[in-house]
């Protein structure tokens, strides 16, 4: 019964979506907002990468909301998977002894790659307003770098959960503080401040690089925490 209704639903949806696709203006959409942003982005925000202007300038609140969603997801994963109570986060010191370092190849490869990944991650974050990439992508690289290190050699390296949560709080708070500073300078929340600098140079686009740095730290800390929480073998029952 459920199956048939599901199939009926699906076929209806297939029909609907196919018809819609036929009706859409493909390849020549009326980009009203898009054109306005392409015209004004250079003067209003000053980042060479217009997508960054949109992510942190025109739609900064969306980015803040997105960070909050990641934060919520990481909190829930922590709540669901660890036995921690107030003040005490489940430290993986206790179950160290059942972990073994991975094989020779993995250990050496990650030792070799780790600094490289850090540099690449920081480069992607700090050049987010000039080239493709930015806080999210660089943050992911950082998170993967750290959690690979922990996963590959759990005996030698452990990430301090308290440190991770302080970093993520600090990054989120600084994003908000940058926004609120603009608010109290008599302008509105998350308005780009500081001079635009020389266009397409590293020190340009006002507060955008700072915001992206906060985003990168936050995303990195959040995702590293997520990956490690998912990877701990201990589940509260």
């Amino acid at each position, binding site marked *: 019964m459920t*199956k048939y209704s*599901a199939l009926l*639903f*699906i076929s209806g*949806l*297939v029909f609907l*979506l*196919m018809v819609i*696709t*036929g*009706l*859409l203006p*493909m*390849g*020549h*959409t009326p*980009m009203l*907002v*898009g054109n306005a*942003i*392409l015209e004004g*982005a*250079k003067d209003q925000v000053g980042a*060479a*990468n*217009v*997508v960054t*202007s*949109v*992510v942190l300038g*025109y*739609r900064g609140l*969306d*980015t803040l*909301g*997105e960070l909050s*969603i*990641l934060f*919520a*997801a*990481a909190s*829930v*994963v922590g709540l*669901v*998977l660890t036995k921690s109570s107030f003040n005490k986060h489940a430290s993986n010191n206790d179950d160290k002894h059942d972990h073994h370092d991975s094989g020779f190849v993995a250990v050496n490869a990650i030792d070799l790659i780790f600094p490289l990944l850090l540099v690449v991650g920081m480069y992607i974050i700090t050049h987010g307003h000039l*080239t*493709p990439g930015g806080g*999210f992508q660089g943050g992911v690289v950082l998170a993967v770098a750290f959690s690979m290190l922990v996963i590959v050699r759990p005996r030698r390296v452990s990430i301090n959960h308290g440190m991770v949560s302080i970093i993520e709080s600090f990054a989120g708070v600084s994003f908000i503080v940058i926004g609120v500073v603009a608010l109290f300078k008599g302008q509105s929340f998350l308005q780009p401040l500081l001079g635009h600098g020389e*266009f*397409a140079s590293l020190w340009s686009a006002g507060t955008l690089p700072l915001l992206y740095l906060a985003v990168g730290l936050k*995303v990195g800390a959040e*995702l590293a925490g*997520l990956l490690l*929480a*998912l990877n701990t073998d201990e*589940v509260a*029952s």
Partner: protein
Amino acid sequence: MNSFFTIEGILYFGAISLSIIGLFGLLVSKNLFRMLLSLVLFEAGANLVLVLSGFIRNGIAPIFLDGNSGAVMNDPVPQALVLTAIVIGVGVQALALSLIFRVKKHYGSMDMRTIRSKLEREIATQAGVTPPGSNEAPAPVKLVKGEAHE
């Protein structure tokens, strides 16, 4: 109507098909992990539709470089939206996985139907009602009496 055999036509077809495959999997699968994979596909399809909504034929990437003043650029807004949507998607995915771990641990099964019937029985027992439409004996429930009131 559009002519179909163009780059946009093929891409729209791919995007819509991807979403439909994802939704189909979500509705028809019984396995929790497979449902999660289907959800990922569904999200990916929607993201592709969103990116295509800013696609201009022969447009260039929306980045100001030295040599490209005057060229037609793609719409930057959908690209920014999709960045947000992708990150949201991965958060939800990790969250779902952590819930699946717990559910697997508690029910010992990955089958949505089994879990749902067990869940309904638990709720009914908790409320002190005979479970609706169950012929078998109710499963032993670990809960202590009186919890329903808490």
